[in-house]
């Protein structure tokens, strides 16, 4: 509880959360306005249900993608100096000389940030999904909603762990750049793979994308979310509708085993961070 309260004070008093909320509200408002305009365009026109649903999927995927990117930037800028920054500016000197094992400090900081991050991600997730559901009448089953919500908040938790691990070994700015590039590469490789797969599988691109997925599973989780949202709905979509979504198509949907891998991934990343922090000299 103390770590959560402490992280909350930091995020609010440094005005990170207020600023993020205002800008997020702007993003969500624009998104909702877009959804509303599309929904009104459908009215009074003879449209196929399939076309309606297809547009809803693209909009929803775009909304989820951009909200994930906003959350990713929030994580990067908030936590790129979580360890190294606090060492560099002397905050850690008084903290680590207390009778507390370093791994507890590390995991405490992770838990504190994670709590507020999940809260923010939850707000963003429902702010995207609700307009799509109510204005575009996109069908959502409660179980699907729960599964996709968990997957949606999972990626930020992974990115947070990676960012804190990087912060244990790299200076603040270097870590920010490294994590942003890793996240960007992960997303780009996923999009590139989808585009290449549309014209026939490219082994080299697929292999490269797979390696990046192992390093940073952000894009895979987004693919899985899209897949989960469509799976089992028995939507009246043309056979090629989803595949024609270009970079947002759901080729190579990550398996349950891959989702399981991300759990192991998180545990390993956190363990590595704790180990690295324990061994680190605070000069």
């Amino acid at each position, binding site marked *: *509880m*103390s770590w959560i*309260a*402490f992280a909350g*004070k*930091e995020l609010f*008093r*440094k005005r990170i959360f207020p600023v993020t909320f205002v800008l997020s509200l702007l993003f969500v408002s624009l998104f909702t306005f877009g959804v509303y305009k599309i929904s009104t365009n459908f009215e009074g026109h003879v449209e196929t249900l399939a076309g309606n649903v297809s547009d809803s999927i693209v909009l929803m995927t775009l909304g989820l993608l951009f909200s994930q990117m906003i959350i990713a930037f929030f994580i990067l800028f908030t936590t790129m100096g979580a360890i190294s920054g606090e060492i560099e*500016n*002397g*905050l*850690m*000197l*008084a*903290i*680590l*000389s*207390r*009778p*507390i*094992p370093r791994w507890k*400090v590390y995991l405490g900081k992770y838990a504190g940030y994670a709590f507020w991050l999940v809260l923010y991600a939850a707000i963003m997730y429902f702010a995207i999904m609700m307009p799509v559901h109510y204005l575009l009448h996109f069908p959502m089953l409660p179980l699907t909603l729960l599964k996709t919500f968990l997957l949606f908040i999972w990626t930020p938790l992974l990115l947070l762990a990676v960012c804190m691990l990087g912060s244990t070994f790299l200076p603040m700015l270097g870590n920010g750049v490294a994590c942003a590039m890793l996240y960007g590469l992960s997303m780009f490789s996923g999009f590139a793979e989808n585009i290449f797969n549309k014209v026939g599988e490219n082994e080299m691109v697929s292999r490269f994308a797979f390696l990046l997925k192992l390093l940073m599973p952000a894009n895979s989780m987004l693919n899985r979310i899209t897949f989960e949202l469509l799976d089992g709905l028995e939507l009246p979509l043309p056979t090629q509708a989803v595949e024609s979504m270009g970079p947002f198509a759901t080729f190579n949907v990550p398996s349950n085993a891959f989702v399981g891998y991300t759990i192991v991934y998180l545990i390993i990343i956190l363990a590595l961070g704790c180990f690295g922090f324990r*061994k680190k*000299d*605070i*000069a």
Partner: protein
Amino acid sequence: MIILQTDRLSKTYASGTGCSNISLTIKQGQIFGLLGPNGAGKSTFVKMVVGLLRPDSGSGTLFGKPIGDPESRVKLGYLPELFRFQDWLTGAEVLRYHAGLCGMTRAQTKSASFAARIKEVFRTCGLNERGYDRVRQYSKGMQQRLGLACALLMDPDFIILDEPSSALDPIGRYEVRQLLERLRSEGKTVFLNTHLLEDVEAVCDEVAFLHKGQLRASGPMQEMLRTDSSWELTVSGWLPELQEELSEQLLPGMAVEVTKKAADGSAVLKVSAHNREQIGYLIRLLVEEGVTVYEVVPVQGSLEAWFLSMSGGEAAGGARS
């Protein structure tokens, strides 16, 4: 009771600086001063003791537990050098946060008794009501006072202060000295890491001198400052020509210098000699020349002179401290 004991504790940075083979013993109830020029390796040594740095070699115990073990730091209060606190918190929130790090629950840190404790340390360290302001609004001196409050918060038995007076004005320095005296009277042990000699001279029982990462000397302050080679003689009946006459009869290694001279024949002589026997010999010569010797006082070395002699009059040469 031994509070801290280190045995050949060493830490070398990639630049080749740090400190090596530092063996020290700190006993309960004393104020121990670690002296040395900037970059001598004082802070490196302290950081190893409080678990911030991992020693390359050697070992040490704090309250009987290996240094680096969090358990060894339960009764420790530490004021780091060049520290910062979370400037988005108030001073009181910083203290509550540190209490949490020391194992107190959130409910305990919010209790009335702990609020009273916070108030008490704020008063002790001269922060008073300003302790409830945001750290962002503090001057450097106030941040230093908050650092002191943080070090004293959990009523530690052993307090390590790394340059505690560095950001304080003369009044603040005086208050810190008073505080150190009070801590000693309460049976606390204080380790003072500083290059401010007046602080050390005023309060320390024992001192150690570190230079270029090496321990040059360690022991009780009076012992460190005692010098057997210089005496001051107050005499009367002194005549200017006596100096030349005496110099012909002095033993090898002896020298006489007149530091004060009055028209009535009284004078103060500064005498260099190897031992007290040589001083006895000089007194006999003076008496034979008709000089009256009123007082013979061994010259106590100043801490500044000792500091300069230990460091050879040079700084550590940019070594990391």
